[in-house]
């Protein structure tokens, strides 16, 4: 044990920080930053301006699209769902207007995701995080929830005061109202999500009359809860901590990418100054803090581009409102490229180069993937044949010495009409083809197979071959399925197995 205990200097009294108050500004180095910090609740202030209007417009568009799309009808004829956009897990089919996707063609959806990712790369390298700031569901619903919050609890100052005030009947009423409306929006969101997987009019009736299935109620509940939590409570933490995109989107940015940026060269040194022309020794920034107050992720854009910035541009609106009042030049915070900022600082001419190797590569890959997908869609077959050979028994020796193999043949008739396909086998001389309970043929003839519209038909098929026709143990054999009227044709390369050659006499 130590003989003496060092006298520890008493740390400075902690500022009596109320809940939600900003910590006192302290100059910090990287070493000083704590590994863990409690979340400081963000109270974004309402702003007016160009970017706010754009954001409202995109929000209205996205939400309208989301809530209305399941109700759009599309006639596909009798026996098929008439919902334009539907993923029918039970059938299982996915419908997108005139396109119908079978589970075997899920690569179309993969292609869409690839297109989405590369499109995101391209847009980011051109305009920064437009997706994050405007179109991402997290942003759209958070914005919607904040609108409700502002409407019920008031703007930034009023909300901060309300949160710090002791519980009262008024506070309780407002909080209850806010969470009630949030819950209703969340329910509508979770409900609308399920509509994409069910016939919308039918499901809505079933949902409210208690006739929907347990799974349906579960998924509505799940998406209601996640919407409520993510948009009501988690908000900017989703972008900062949960979403992987902000962590690597910087790799898409270069000096020619348009990003939200602060004109440090003319704003600094900031100070609480008055008048259209700042006094000597000061820049245009009057340090009013409105850009910070307006930020939905609670950051200071004057610190430069940072991980938390979702590129929504609300700080631009906030700053311009003030600059208009003060009478100083607008766009102290603006959408601009890093190269332009350097040029402006030096008084050189500005410009923007959207065509760069980076954007060309992204656009090129985007074009190639889109072309591949389009080609695949145009060449999409309406007939597919699968053949599975019996494993037990491998082959059967018949009483006349012939060898028989059994197969399960599946015909995927993707057309919406009943068709009769012609099945034949090639590759083995003298093979006899027997379709169980349907018919048989020999000598290269065909057996007609009826297939119902939009169905998979399964047939038991036997091929019987004389041992002399089998050159080896495993012999290639082709199953050919044709539809003479439409010209649809598909073939499946299978094998015909006979006895091991050394065993034969």
């Amino acid at each position: 044990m130590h003989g003496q205990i060092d006298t520890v200097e008493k740390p400075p009294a902690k500022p009596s920080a109320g809940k939600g108050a900003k910590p006192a500004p302290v100059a910090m180095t990287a070493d000083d930053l704590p590994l863990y910090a409690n979340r400081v609740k963000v109270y974004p202030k309402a702003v007016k301006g160009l970017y706010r209007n754009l954001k409202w417009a995109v929000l209205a568009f996205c939400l309208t699209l989301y809530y209305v799309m399941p109700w759009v009808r599309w006639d596909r004829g009798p026996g098929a769902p008439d919902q334009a956009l539907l993923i029918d897990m039970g059938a299982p089919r996915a419908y997108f207007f005139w396109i119908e996707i079978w589970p075997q063609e899920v690569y179309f959806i993969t292609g869409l995701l690839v297109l989405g990712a590369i499109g995101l790369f391209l847009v980011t390298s051109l305009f920064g995080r437009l997706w994050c700031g405007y179109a991402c569901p997290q942003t759209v619903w958070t914005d919607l929830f904040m609108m409700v919050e502002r409407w019920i609890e008031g703007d930034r100052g009023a909300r901060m005061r309300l949160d710090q005030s002791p519980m009262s009947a008024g506070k309780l009423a407002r909080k209850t109202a806010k969470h009630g409306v949030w819950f209703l929006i969340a329910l509508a969101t979770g409900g609308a999500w399920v509509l994409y997987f069910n016939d919308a009019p039918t499901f809505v009736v079933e949902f409210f009359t208690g006739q929907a299935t347990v799974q349906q109620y579960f998924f509505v509940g799940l998406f209601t809860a996640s919407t409520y939590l993510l948009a009501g409570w988690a908000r900017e933490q989703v972008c900062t901590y949960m979403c992987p995109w902000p962590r690597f989107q910087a790799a898409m940015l270069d000096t020619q990418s348009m990003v939200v940026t602060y004109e440090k060269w003319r704003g600094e040194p900031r100070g609480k100054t008055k008048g259209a022309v700042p006094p000597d020794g000061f820049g245009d920034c009057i340090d009013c803090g409105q850009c910070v107050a307006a930020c939905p992720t609670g950051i200071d854009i004057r610190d430069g581009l940072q991980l938390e910035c979702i590129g929504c541009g609300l700080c631009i609106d906030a700053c311009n409102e003030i600059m208009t009042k003060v009478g100083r030049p607008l766009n102290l915070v603006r959408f601009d490229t890093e190269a332009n900022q350097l040029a402006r600082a030096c008084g050189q001419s500005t410009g923007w180069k959207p065509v760069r190797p980076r954007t060309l590569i992204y656009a090129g890959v985007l074009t190639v993937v889109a072309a591949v997908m389009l080609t695949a869609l145009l060449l999409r077959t309406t007939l597919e044949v699968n053949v599975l050979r019996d494993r037990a028994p491998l082959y059967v020796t018949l009483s006349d010495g012939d060898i028989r193999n059994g197969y399960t043949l599946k015909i995927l008739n993707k057309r919406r009409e009943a068709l009769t396909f012609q099945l034949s086998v090639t590759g083995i001389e003298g093979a006899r083809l027997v379709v169980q309970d349907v018919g048989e043929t020999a000598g290269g003839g065909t057996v007609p197979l009826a297939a119902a519209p939009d169905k998979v038909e399964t047939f038991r098929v036997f091929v019987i071959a004389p041992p002399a026709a089998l050159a080896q143990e495993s012999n290639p054999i082709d199953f050919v399925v044709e539809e003479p009227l439409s010209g649809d044709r598909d073939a499946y390369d299978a094998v015909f197995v006979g006895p091991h050659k050394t065993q034969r006499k």
Partner: protein
Amino acid sequence: MPTKIEKDAATGQMTTGHEWDGIKELNTPLPKWWLYTFYATIVFGIVYMVLYPAWPSLSDHTKGALGWTQRGELAQKMEAEQQRLAPIMARIEATDIADIRNDPELMGYVAAAGRVAFADNCAGCHGAGGAGAAGGFPSLADDDWIWGGTPDQILQTVSYGVRNANENSRINDMPRFGVDQLLDRAQIDDVAEYVLAMSGTATDAAAAERGAAVYAENCASCHGEKGEGIVDLGGPRLNDGIWLYGGDKASVVHSITYARRGNMPAWAERLDPATVKVLAAYVHALGGGQ
């Protein structure tokens, strides 16, 4: 060493009252969400112990207020499953096997249920998919049937089996020609050659010729004049390439000398009539049904 419990100036937290080398430990409370989750699990545990079997005793265990058991749940599920299948099983029981074979809907059920029932009851001897096995377990997929390959004949065989105690069992017994000295060795050798000649695999034409008379006298009554087999008597066909006990000369000589008497249980004694019918229809559809 214990020290005074005091308030830490830097954090405002109380200390635990322990100190090691000048380092004091803060008594930071557990996170609320963790604590409440912990309490919730305790409540859950108590409720669970009341409702469900929980505590073992020396010979038994507590039963729980719900009376739930895993076996009971399984029995319930099996019961529910049988209820679910009851209508189609009733239809199968009421339908003639030949009509089942021509009904695509019933055959769809037979294909699924038959595969499972076959794997459970038949595959042990007849092999997966009815492939058969060496040593007297006939293939059910080929076109050679000892007791007949029509749906009705197969149903009869599956229901009552072969050479068992059931009174409807298929029965025939081949004499042990060698052991009981009905034929001498030379005669057996000759008739074996003659039998092999029927399927064109004989090696001694003279012996085969000598065997013809022996065959006509001793074998033809069951196996047919030309070895074509007599289904009604269960006399296997001898003039094809399919051999239940091997088609080489030694095996044929052994069969004649000792006789072969395979058995099959009467499945009507073990399974319900609908399942037996499902099995018969399934076997008929394996590829060799007539």
